[in-house]
C-alpha cells in the first residue's frame, strides 16, 4: 500500500489541498449533511441557551391559563405554542425538552460506543476464538428484547435520568460491535499493521494509533445513528411512563401527557412529536452525510 502511494506521489499536483480542507469542501456541497448539521446546530444551541430563550419557567403552573391553544390555532401571543393541562408554557417545555433528548441521546451513544467499539475492535483484530466470543455476546444482546428489558430495568431501579441513560447505553452497542468488527478486519489486512507489528509496537499502541484512527469514520456514523435510536427509545420509555419522570420536560412525556386530550387538543401531541421527528431526522441526515463525505473517492 505505502509503496504504491510513494511511486505515484511525484505525479500528483504539487499543491494538493490538505485532507481536512477536501472533507470540508465535500461536506459543504452535500445537501443532506448541511441540512442535518444546521438543524442539529439549531436544536443544540436552543438546548444550550434554554434559560435565555425560554419565555417562561417550564415548571411554573398557571391553572388559570390551562390548555391555551397555540397562536396558529387562534391563541394569543402570550403563549406562542399554548399551554398544557397544568397551564405550563408549551414552548418553554419544548425548549427544555431538547436538553433532555440531546443529553440522553448523546450520553447513551457514548456509553454504547465504548462498549461496542471495544468488543468489535478486539473481535476484528484477533479473530479466531476472541472473535467467536464477541459474536456470541452480540447474538445474546440481539436476542434480548431491548424495549422490554429497558422498561423492566427502569421499573425496577426507578426512572432517574442516570438509570435511563445507563440502560440505553448498555443496550444499544450491538451495531458498534458489528460494524467496527468488520471495519477492523479490513484494516487488519493492511501493510501498516504488519509493519507496526514487525517494528515491535505494543498492542495498545497498534489498536489506538493504527486501528482506531482508521475505523473512526465508521464509528462516527454509528454514533449518530445510535444517538437517534436512543432519543426515540427514551421518548418511547417516557411515553409509557417508565422513562424520565414528571415534571421533567421530556418530549416523550409531553406526548404521553397530551394523549389524555387526544380527541380535543391534538396539538398537544403534534408539537412535541414533530420536534422529535425533526431532531431524529437531522441526526440521521448528518450521519448519512458523514458516511458519504468520508467515503473513499469513487464510492457512493
Amino acid at each position: 500500500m505505502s509503496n504504491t502511494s510513494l511511486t505515484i506521489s511525484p505525479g500528483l499536483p504539487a499543491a494538493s489541498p490538505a485532507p481536512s480542507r477536501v472533507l470540508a469542501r465535500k461536506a459543504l456541497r452535500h445537501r443532506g449533511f448541511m441540512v442535518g448539521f444546521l438543524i442539529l446546530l439549531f436544536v443544540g444551541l436552543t438546548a444550550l441557551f434554554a434559560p435565555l430563550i425560554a419565555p417562561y419557567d417550564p415548571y411554573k403552573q398557571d391553572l388559570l391559563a390551562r390548555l391555551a391553544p397555540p397562536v396558529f390555532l387562534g391563541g394569543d401571543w402570550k403563549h406562542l405554542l399554548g399551554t398544557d393541562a397544568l397551564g405550563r408554557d408549551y414552548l418553554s417545555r419544548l425548549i427544555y425538552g431538547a436538553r433532555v433528548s440531546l443529553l440522553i441521546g448523546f450520553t447513551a451513544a457514548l456509553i454504547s460506543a465504548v462498549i461496542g467499539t471495544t468488543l468489535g475492535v478486539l473481535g476484528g483484530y484477533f479473530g479466531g476464538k476472541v472473535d467467536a466470543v464477541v459474536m456470541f455476546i452480540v447474538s445474546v444482546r440481539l436476542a434480548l428484547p431491548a424495549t422490554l428489558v429497558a422498561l423492566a430495568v427502569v421499573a425496577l431501579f426507578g426512572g432517574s435520568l442516570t438509570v435511563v441513560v445507563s440502560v440505553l447505553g448498555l443496550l444499544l452497542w450491538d451495531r458498534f460491535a458489528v460494524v467496527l468488527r468488520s471495519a477492523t478486519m479490513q484494516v487488519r489486512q493492511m501493510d501498516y499493521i504488519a509493519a507496526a507489528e514487525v517494528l515491535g509496537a505494543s498492542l495498545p499502541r497498534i489498536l489506538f494509533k493504527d486501528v482506531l484512527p482508521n475505523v473512526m469514520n465508521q464509528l462516527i456514523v454509528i454514533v449518530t445513528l445510535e444517538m437517534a435510536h436512543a432519543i426515540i427509545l427514551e421518548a418511547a420509555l417516557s411515553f409509557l411512563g417508565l422513562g424520565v419522570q414528571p415534571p421533567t420536560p421530556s418530549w416523550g412525556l409531553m406526548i404521553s401527557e397530551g394523549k389524555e386530550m387526544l380527541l380535543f387538543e391534538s396539538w398537544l401531541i403534534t408539537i412535541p412529536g414533530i420536534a422529535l421527528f425533526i431532531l431524529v431526522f437531522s441526526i440521521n441526515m448528518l450521519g448519512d452525510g458523514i458516511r458519504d463525505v468520508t467515503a473513499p473517492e469513487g464510492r457512493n
Partner: protein
Amino acid sequence: MLKFVLTKIGMAALVALTVSFISFILLFMAGDPAIAIAGEGASGEVIAAIRSQYGFDRPLLVQYVDWLMRALSGDFGMSYYFKAPVSGMIAERLPVTMTIGFLGMSFALLLAIPMGVLAAAFPNTLIDRLALGIAVVGQAIPSFWFGLILIVVFSVNLGWVPASGTRQWTGYVLPMIVLGYYATPAIMRLTRAGMLEVLSADYIRTARAKGIKPRRVLFKHALRNAIIPVVSLAAVQLGFMFGGSVVVETIFALHGAGYLAWESISRNDLPTMQALILIFAMFYIAFTFLADVLNAWLDPRLRTV
C-alpha cells in the same frame, strides 16, 4: 448442510441458555422479590415467611436451575399480581401479538420490496426519490407518535377504523401499518442496494441481450439473488417487532403479550416479566435460525460454518 444446521442449532441453544440466565438474574438484582409479593409495609415476619415459602432463601444458582427446569416444561410459575399461571396468560395473549407481527411484516415486505426493486431499476428518478423519502421519514418517525397521529386522523376524524381493541378485524389495520412502517426503511434500502449490485452483473446483461422482457429480468432473474440478504434482515426485524409490540399494543389497547408485558412491568410482576423476556428472545432466536437455514438452502456458498 446437516453439519451446518446442527452447528446453528447448538449456537442457538447456547444463546438461549445465556439469555435465560440474564433474564433471570437481571430481575433478581433489582430488589427482594419477597417484598414485591408481600407488598409495601409488610412486617418482617411476613416477608421471611414468603421468602422461605417461595424458596428465595436458596442460593441464586439453585433457584435459576429450578426455574429453568420448570420453564422448559412450560411452567413459569404464578403471577404475583394476576394470581394466575403465567404460561396460561401468555398463551392466551400471544395470538394477538403474533397476528400483528406477521401482518406488520407482510405490510413491510409488500411495500418495501417492490419499492426497493423499482428504485434500483430507475435510479435517480421520481420513484427512487419517493422510496428514499419513505425510508427517511420511516427512520425518523417515533412509532408511538405515528400510531397516535393515525388514531387522530383515521379513527377520530374520519371514523374509518376503531381506535382500539380487536373485536372487528379493522382494529388490526392501524397497528399493522405502524409496525410495518417501522420495518420498511431497512428492508427497502437493502433491497435497493442488493438490486443495484445484481443488475450490474454479467448474467443480467446476458438475459437482457437474449431479449427477455425487462419485467421478467427484474423480478425473476435479479430479485431472486438480491433477496437473499433481505431474508435475514426480515427475520431480525420480525424478532424486533415482537419485542417492540409492547409500544404498539399499549397505544391501540390490544390485549396481546406486549400489553401483558407492560402491565406486569408496571406492577413489578417478576415471573411474568421473566417469562415474557425469555419468550420474546426465543422468538428472535428461532426466526434468525430459520433465516440462516433458509439462506443456506437458497445459496450453498453460505453453508460454511
